[in-house]
């Protein structure tokens, strides 16, 4: 089980390092997409039979445990948000925050429909060939 946890931690380490390096190169000086890279690394490593065959049985449990802990972590995270001061931030903050979310949902409908049409076209073309 520890191997799964160690792989997970190593992926996060490498991913964050990649993100920080990109941040350095672009002058942002913070992590750019480190978690995303870590996720891709984890996918690559755990799908590589050459690596996973070397591990004793049950290594997956180490990753599955933390995956199951995701929701509790998110609940703890929601309990440690600065809700009080956000709500006392006044009407401007409230309006700005809500307007942005409403706009993003509209764009989601738009982009998702467009992407669906593009994909359908691609599929029908492939079917013709």
């Amino acid at each position, binding site marked *: 089980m520890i191997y799964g946890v160690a792989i997970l931690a190593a992926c996060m380490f490498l991913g964050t390092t990649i993100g920080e390096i990109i941040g350095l190169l672009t002058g942002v000086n913070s992590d750019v997409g480190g*978690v995303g890279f870590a996720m891709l690394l984890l996918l690559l490593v755990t799908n590589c039979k050459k690596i996973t065959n070397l591990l004793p049985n049950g290594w997956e449990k180490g990753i599955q445990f933390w995956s199951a802990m*995701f929701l509790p972590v*998110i609940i703890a995270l*929601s309990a*440690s948000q600065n*809700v009080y001061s956000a709500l006392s931030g006044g009407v401007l903050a409230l309006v700005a925050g809500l307007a942005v979310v409403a706009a993003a949902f509209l764009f989601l409908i738009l982009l998702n429909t467009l992407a669906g049409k593009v994909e359908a076209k691609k599929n029908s073309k492939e079917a013709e060939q």
Partner: protein
Amino acid sequence: MKAVLDIMVDFFTGNGFIASFIVVGLLCLVSDFISKKITKGRIHASAIAIVLGLVLAYIGGVVMNSGVDPATGVQYKKGLADIAMFTGVGFLGSSMLRDFTIVSTAFGAKISEIKKCGLVAIIALFLGIVSSFVFGGVVAYAFGYKDAVSVATIGAGAVTFVVGPVTGDALGATAEVITLSIAAGVIKSIAVMLVTPVVAKKVGLTTPRAAMIFGGLMGTTSGTTAGLAATDPALVPYGAMTSTFYTGLGCLLCPSVLYALTELIL
């Protein structure tokens, strides 16, 4: 009796991380009960747990009155976790464990789905940042902030609550405007947590592709992953994958290109 109570409180204060499992476990138990018995399964238990978490965070803020820690002089800002016996909840919900568990959810995601959505996810990222900046900026302008620095800082805050202060510091915005930009970002994050499970089906947020677009448009990693967790846990890795690029990209674009454009317009 008082001694026993003291021992219990001491355990919570001294073993915060362990105690946080009890707190969150109880929260889940209560949420499960409310979901099954009161809403008859109509509202997901995880959505209720997140709402209860936010309510506790608010109560934490009221109890500490958003004051200053007498020992360190640091402003209280972690909701329930500012109360000494619940600091462990803050550790369990820290960005370190958040990111660690998010990465673990990738286990079981499909690489093919991610590859398929590369282009539209990138479009969503840019559209998400620019539109948040514009809408946030317009609201700031409507509320009487007419200078480019303030408009850009509040606009950046509407991108995420990290991008706001980063941009404000870079441009030399006033402390008041920076605080406002953080508040706007936190409101956005909370709104995404609460609204997503309610509207998910209506806006078509049911597929990995939609989740990747969603992550790119909303950006706030906490809000996006919590919102998706309360909607369909299987979608979490896809939304997280794109949202994790959002803050970095926002820190890159807001103080530079987007600020320059704001200055041109105003």
